[in-house]
């Protein structure tokens, strides 16, 4: 097993509600994993724990079947193998130009300058950042910053890439580009694990979905099987992807019990249109 959480508890200092409560979770190798759940369900905490930034107060986290160790060199190694892309790229970019920022993590690994130069140049090409190489970070757009933030982490060649809400604040075009980028990363053999609110994105992209609520894993499985549990998804107030909603509506046009969210009106319109065109055939 790749990365494994076993009965992990974590409570923030000064908070009475635990952020993670007896969480047991396994991240399978090589899959496109998505983590969904409401705000405050512990997704970010999970990532910070996986990256060794926090230590669990109870339970164990295993990486390649070994419990995490928190001494300097083990952490260094862990953070090279498990890359974390924060939600806010502003938080992650620290150097003044794009190429300098990408090189930062490589120097921290202790690589010699010529190797750093080679890898930075390679990353600039891979992530289509060549033209921005000398641009100061504060002159970039948000989509570009996000791209740089992912390049920063990918340049270290991690085995597991954690992304916290990567589509937040991105426009549809930037989201599409990001999807393409994640696909490319996936094909190089890196396992991608994404925390997100974007169900449509999950439905299109993921092949394994985990659902968290109040610091616990509620459900996991393929998108089809998870989203088939409509009742649970509705109880958690997460809903299901628009496409599936439409499909359900089409297969059972009379039933409108589950017209509960804002997309319901749009779906009804679409349903009428589809039924109309079907009749025309």
């Amino acid at each position, binding site marked *: 097993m790749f990365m494994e959480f076993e009965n992990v508890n974590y409570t923030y200092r000064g908070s009475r509600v635990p952020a993670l409560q007896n969480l047991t979770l396994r991240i399978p190798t090589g899959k496109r994993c998505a983590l969904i759940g409401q705000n405050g369900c512990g997704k970010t905490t999970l990532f910070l724990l996986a990256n060794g930034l926090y230590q669990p107060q109870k339970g164990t986290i295993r990486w390649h079947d070994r419990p995490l160790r928190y001494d300097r060199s083990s952490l260094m190694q862990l953070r090279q193998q498990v890359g974390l892309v924060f939600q806010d790229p502003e938080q992650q970019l*620290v150097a003044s130009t794009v190429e300098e920022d990408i090189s*930062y993590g490589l120097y921290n690994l202790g690589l010699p300058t010529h190797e750093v130069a080679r890898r930075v140049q390679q990353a600039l090409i891979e992530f289509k950042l060549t033209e921005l190489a000398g641009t100061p970070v504060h002159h970039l757009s948000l989509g570009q910053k996000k791209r740089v933030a992912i390049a920063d982490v990918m340049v270290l060649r991690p085995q597991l890439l954690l992304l916290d809400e990567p589509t937040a604040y991105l426009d549809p075009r930037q989201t599409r580009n990001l999807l393409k980028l994640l696909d490319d990363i996936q094909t190089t053999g890196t396992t991608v694990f994404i925390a997100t609110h974007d169900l449509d994105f999950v439905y299109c992209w993921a092949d394994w979905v985990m659902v968290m609520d109040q610091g616990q894993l509620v459900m996991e499985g393929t998108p089809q099987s998870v989203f088939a549990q409509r009742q649970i998804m509705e109880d958690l107030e997460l809903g299901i992807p628009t496409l599936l909603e439409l499909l359900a509506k089409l297969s059972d046009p009379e039933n409108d019990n589950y017209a509960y969210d804002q997309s319901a009106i749009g779906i009804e319109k679409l349903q009428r249109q589809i039924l109309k065109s079907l009749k025309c055939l």
Partner: protein
Amino acid sequence: MNLQIDTFAYTNRLRRLPPESKLLFAIVLLLITYFSTILVQCLIAAWIGIWIIIYAKIPASVYLRLLSVPIVFWLTSLPAFVISFTPLQDLVTITQDAAYGITVFSHFAYISHQGIDQSVRLLSQTIASTSCLYFVLLTVPFTDILQTLRRIGFPVLLTELLLLMYRFIFVLLQIAHELWTAQLCRGGYRTWKLSMNSLGLLIGQLLQRTLDHYHRISQSLESRGGAGEFRVWHSRQYHLPDRYRLESLFGCVTLIGLTGWAYVHGI
């Protein structure tokens, strides 16, 4: 949110010149302004103006606006330099110096020749030396300055601090700008009293957010394996065309020559 000066530093035409050369050039000129006469100072100011506006292609309006800053400071100190007071009984001692004067109660207020002379000297020196400074600010990006500092063996701790400060000035500015816009939208600056209140809130919030930001940044530095030293790599390549090399060399020698000549002849 961008600082305009910073944007110019990254986009000007002299960007590809080696930063060391540009810094050296500015330092030499600055030294000359300290030891030279008004004439040479005016020449330096004009020459740097040419470098900034024509060679670096910084819009003249921007440069002139920047130059107006020291001039405003000079104007505010002008009265103190030019106007002098003396008791009426000592009037005899200053008749040579007074250009124009009036009696104010038991004192005599007058515009002094010496003061005028001094303030003109100050103006030329101010303009010449600030234009040297602006040359650096407008044509050398901050990263290049840092790179140069590292090369000449400046303490690592200080260059890292400067780097982080530089990066976060922009984050802070952005947060401040966003907060300010939000307050403005909601009518926070309608009256003087409200403005003061909003400003107080803004400053308080800034402090809080800065701390929050600091926490998150240190988290991400740690996540990226930050282990003490902050090292980065860049691929910039610099080139100093002979044309600039010759012009700067020739110009500096001429200016030094002029300064020396003025000393010899006691001007």
